[in-house]
């Protein structure tokens, strides 16, 4: 690497375009919502920055707190499901034959390249009361019922008298399912890459020292894959917090998350200051999560360097 002093002209010509772009079209807009979040509406489209804290105070109203709480647990639940499902999937890909690895990875990643809106829309057809999933569950119910009748347990009514379709649309469950659906491939990727780099001799050493499969899995494999799992957690959880489309289309207005309320401040209620404050709230949460991650990394590398 060269010092910027050696070739100042080259340094500036490579540096100025991107720095200028980021300052103008990224930092400045963020600065504007920062100003707006301390502002008041003076007319329909005019906002004056009066440094009021009202907009932040409004976040602590019960309905907004409920909204934040709902956003948090939906995002968290979806993230946890993604990781619990993603770990075995990543493990299968990472330990597959070398020729198969790339194909299996492609198989999982391909849906991810499809438009988010289209993917969410495709779930609409599946999750409806008369959609594919209920059709399938109904078919399962009938088969199970037939089986119970066959073994003479039909009268016990173990499965209820008739199949009741599940309601996914407009329920938190449907929204969680939707978020899992759109984020699963993205969660798998970092877990896969941490497992892929792992040396199997650690696992073999564990077994050699007398640990069983499950013990090796939880005591060796999971701790070693932890950095990847943490990354997976962050890159699933942060976008999930800001999810707009899934609650909008699958929640049918009954399972709002923060983003839906933010959107309404801009495209309906015209309360830009409050919308700005809510957006920044989301941004602050993101920063706190990233900072925690950075601290965890720093602590780990400190521990490791001390161990050496």
């Amino acid at each position, binding site marked *: 690497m060269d010092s910027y002093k050696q070739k100042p002209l080259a340094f500036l010509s490579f540096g100025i375009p991107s720095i200028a772009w980021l300052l103008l*079209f990224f930092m400045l807009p963020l600065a504007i919502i920062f100003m707006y979040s301390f502002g008041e509406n003076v007319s329909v489209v005019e906002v004056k920055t009066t440094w009021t804290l009202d907009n932040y105070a409004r976040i602590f109203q019960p309905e907004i707190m409920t909204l934040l709480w709902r956003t948090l647990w939906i995002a968290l639940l979806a993230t946890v499901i993604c990781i619990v499902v993603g770990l075995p999937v990543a493990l299968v890909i990472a330990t597959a034959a070398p020729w198969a690895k790339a194909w299996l990875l492609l198989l999982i990643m391909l849906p991810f390249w499809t438009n988010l809106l289209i993917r969410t829309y495709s779930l609409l057809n599946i999750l409806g009361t008369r959609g594919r999933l209920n059709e399938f569950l109904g078919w399962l119910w009938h088969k199970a019922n037939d089986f119970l009748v066959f073994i003479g347990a039909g009268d016990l009514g173990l499965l209820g008298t008739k199949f009741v379709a599940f309601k996914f649309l407009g329920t938190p469950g449907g929204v969680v399912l939707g978020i899992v659906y759109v984020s699963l491939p993205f969660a798998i990727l970092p877990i896969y890459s941490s497992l892929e780099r792992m040396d199997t001799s650690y696992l073999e050493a564990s077994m050699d020292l007398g640990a069983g499969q499950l013990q090796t899995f939880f005591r060796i494999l999971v701790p070693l894959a932890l950095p990847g799992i943490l990354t997976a957690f962050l890159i699933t959880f942060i976008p999930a917090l800001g999810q707009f489309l899934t609650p909008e289309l699958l929640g049918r207005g009954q399972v709002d998350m923060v983003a839906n309320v933010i959107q309404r401040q801009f495209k309906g209620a015209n309360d830009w200051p409050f919308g700005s404050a809510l957006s920044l709230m989301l941004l602050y949460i993101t920063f706190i999560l990233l900072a925690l991650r950075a601290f965890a990394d720093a602590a780990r590398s400190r521990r490791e360097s001390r161990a050496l």
Partner: protein
Amino acid sequence: MAMDKVKRHRNKRKPFEYSRKWSLRSVFLMATVFLYVPIVVLILFSFNNSRRGGNVIWKGFTTKYYDKAFHNEDLMLAFGNTLTIAVIATIVSVILGTFTAILLWRFRFPLKPLFEGLVSLPIVIPEICMGVSLALFFTKMGWLGNTSDVWPFNLVNIIIAHITFCFPFAAMVIRTRLQSFNREMEEAALDLGATEFQVFKDILLPHLKPGLVAGALLSFTLSLDDFIVTFFTSGPNTVTFPVKIYSMVRFSVTPEINAASTVLILLTLVLTFFALRVQRNSDVVE
């Protein structure tokens, strides 16, 4: 002489070949089915001969909804807008991304970690924050897309917004590629008499090519894929394909949407195919 009996063993699974464990395989299979069924159903029902929204029941095969989608002027205009935005955003993103990547790879400078953080910020912050901030920025600057503006200047808001979130990704991909560059190559070319510019053109750029293509494809897909940021930064008259579909979905669910979506999925498939080709070719050269 009696032959010793050779004991044969079945080829047993080794302890850590998780890919050969049936329990894990079935999780993999279920995840795959979960990921693909909705998309496959969506494609299938684009051929469903049913007018009703929600398209629950199969009423026979037809391609008339493709016809309808292709003759929907608003939809086609939106599609054209989307492609225009994606192409321009991709070109600018790759250029900006290359500059950023070279800057970070080549130079030591004060506040470098801060700059690195700034570049990766658009990747990590929630999309809605970016959408909202850019929307307010454009309003405040008075840069609102007008239909009276000459194409593609009516789309300039959306293009700027897309470049802002695309180029950090492009920079990341290109920087990764740069890291595999052997600087002795650069010195060898200088040693053989090339000038700094010739080194850039003859040696560095060819090495970067797969990274540039990968960065371009990534930017293009991100731009095609984006809904949120576009949704906030577009004016009422500058509609993109995802935004148009969104408004159609809110209105009613018709096979026409399925047909239009299928076209976009196909486009993505083609792009992915190209990306893989490029990657494989560059792997062979290494």
